[in-house]
């Protein structure tokens, strides 16, 4: 059956897994039933355990769903430690439900798949050897990719039922009061892990830093925690976040960033009290810098900045240009370290950030967002999940969620190497074109024809040529040539959920 972005979703998948096809980016106001975890009451005397192995053996059983967070990013030790024990003890048929999978986790997940330890995965994304293995059919069941907001929704509504959450933290007391902002391996906001702490049946904190009781501020609370395990090290501080974020010198990225800033400042949303999300990546960071100058020049202040936070955003907060930073994760040390100093840097969980199935999320109030794309097609559909060779190498992250902002800007070069970024049809549809308002490239911009108001307000900006997206696609094609269409086998290796839990696309096994 074809869905509303013209993607063929196999009927047997819809039937077997009880899915609806994607129809609209408007979530509406449905009645939602949340679930609650079952727990074993305790006064907490025996929470602290020395052996991670003992805890794994006590808590994990075949067929269970285990979860992790990815706040340590490429510096994570906890995932590998726990998975090693799980594999070595020969557990079978586990579902892996991390908030996302980073490269440092790839090898052990591939091993767990090969040995039948892991038979199901749900994640925000995956890359490298793991994405390659899954794209070549290594996993029996299709991976389910969910955005950060959708993961929160799925956990709250029971679609993801976490049996055991193994959550690495840079500090905790003996009862499980913990935060992400202090200690040698501090990473800042615990945003994604807070869902697991709240909803998992069993919560195991893993830390290298036991603090005197009670440990505050407590993002994860003792009421949620079953075990606290002391290990030598939970992560490598040098690899958790990038160091000082460098300002791009790439002229193409700078041109794009400057144009993005023009689009923002010439839109009706650029006024006192506006809100924005920029994310990471060269162009996005440069946008923050251009935006800062425009805010100073026009005496405009923002009410909040949202999402994954970087140091340049914290600088805006400290300069008084942004009132609040609503922080679900921190991409660099500067942002992570400032968290316990700035009380206006509010830690938010994934549900508060982006979940459509609650009583209002931060993204619902978001004015402007700048997002990236591996591909965008002439219907403005965006792919952030599969490469131009069809292999999984990306993550939804908060893309679908933040794209519901009032002004959603995709910043992308026309081509990357010999690969066109603007294509007739994306390889994998992740965020629907209905959510996208403006595409900014180095040669000019394209405005979604549905946004007649923007066509009006952005048509006469000096130095910002407006094209149709078809024209930009043609320009890209003239540069690189027409690629041979990719070939796939029939087998579905991954499902792409939209943030409401419907299917927006599937990824098929690549043909080599």
């Amino acid at each position, binding site marked *: 059956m074809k869905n509303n972005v013209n993607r063929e979703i196999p009927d047997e998948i819809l039937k077997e897994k009880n899915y609806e096809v994607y129809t609209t980016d408007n979530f509406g106001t449905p009645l939602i039933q949340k679930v609650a975890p079952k727990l074993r009451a305790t006064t907490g005397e025996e929470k602290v355990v020395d052996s991670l192995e003992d805890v794994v053996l006590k808590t994990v059983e075949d067929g269970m769903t285990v979860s992790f967070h990815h706040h340590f990013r490429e510096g994570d030790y906890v995932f590998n430690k726990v998975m090693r024990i799980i594999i070595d003890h020969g557990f079978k048929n586990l579902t892996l439900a991390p908030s996302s999978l980073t490269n440092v986790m790839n090898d052990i997940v591939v091993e767990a798949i090969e040995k039948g330890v892991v038979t199901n995965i749900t994640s925000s994304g995956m890359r490298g050897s793991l994405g390659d293995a899954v794209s070549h059919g290594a996993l029996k069941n299709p991976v389910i990719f969910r955005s950060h907001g959708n993961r929160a929704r799925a956990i709250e509504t029971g679609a993801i039922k976490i049996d055991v959450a193994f959550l690495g933290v840079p500090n905790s007391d003996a009862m499980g009061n913990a935060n992400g902002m202090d200690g040698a391996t501090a990473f800042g906001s615990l945003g994604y892990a807070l869902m697991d702490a709240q909803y998992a049946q069993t919560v195991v904190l893993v830390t290298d830093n036991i603090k005197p009781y009670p440990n505050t501020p407590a993002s994860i609370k003792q009421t949620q925690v079953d075990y606290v395990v002391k290990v030598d090290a939970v992560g490598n501080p040098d690899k958790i976040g990038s160091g000082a974020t460098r300002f791009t010198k790439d002229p193409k990225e700078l041109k794009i960033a400057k144009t993005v800033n023009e689009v923002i400042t010439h839109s009706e949303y650029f006024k006192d009290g506006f809100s924005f999300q920029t994310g990471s990546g060269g162009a996005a960071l440069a946008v923050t810098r251009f935006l800062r100058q425009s805010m100073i020049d026009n005496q405009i202040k923002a009410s909040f900045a949202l999402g994954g936070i970087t140091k340049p955003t914290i600088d805006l907060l400290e300069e008084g240009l942004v009132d609040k930073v609503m922080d679900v994760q921190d991409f660099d040390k500067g942002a992570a370290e400032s968290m316990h100093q700035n009380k206006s840097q509010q830690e938010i969980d994934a549900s508060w950030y982006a979940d459509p199935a609650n009583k209002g999320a931060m993204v619902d109030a978001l004015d402007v967002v700048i997002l990236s794309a591996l591909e965008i097609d002439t219907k403005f559909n965006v792919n952030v999940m599969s490469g*131009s*060779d*069809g292999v999984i190498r990306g993550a939804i992250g908060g893309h679908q969620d933040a794209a519901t902002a009032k002004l959603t800007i995709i910043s992308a070069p026309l081509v*990357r*190497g*010999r*690969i066109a970024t603007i294509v007739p049809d994306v390889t994998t549809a992740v965020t629907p074109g209905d959510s996208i308002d403006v595409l900014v490239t180095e040669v000019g911009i394209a405005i979604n024809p549905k946004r007649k108001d923007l066509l009006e307000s952005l048509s006469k900006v000096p130095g910002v040529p407006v094209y149709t997206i078809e024209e930009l696609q043609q320009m890209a094609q003239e*540069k*690189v*040539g027409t*690629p*041979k269409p*990719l070939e796939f086998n029939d087998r579905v290796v991954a499902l792409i959920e939209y943030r409401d839990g419907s299917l927006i696309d599937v990824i098929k096994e690549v043909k080599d």
Partner: protein
Amino acid sequence: MEIKKTAIAGTLESSDVQIMLSAGTNGFEFELESDVAKQFGDQIKETISNVLGMYDIKDAKIKVVDKGALDLVIKARAIAAVQRALDIVDAPKWEVL
């Protein structure tokens, strides 16, 4: 024309292509390495084959390490490799250029 010596042109920088030509006996024998081989492998081979054809080369071993080069880059590197392989760098075949 006969390839006189093994010759190389191009670098391994992104958006470049490195082409190595050596004498062969069995038509064009390609060895292609490229991240975009699936989408552009045939076009890359065709571009290089056309250049070789313009110099009347019938047999060659062609090793290509492509880093996402555009077609005009591939053509330029192929011409340079051929001129070196034929030892005619001092007297380029202008009509091909």
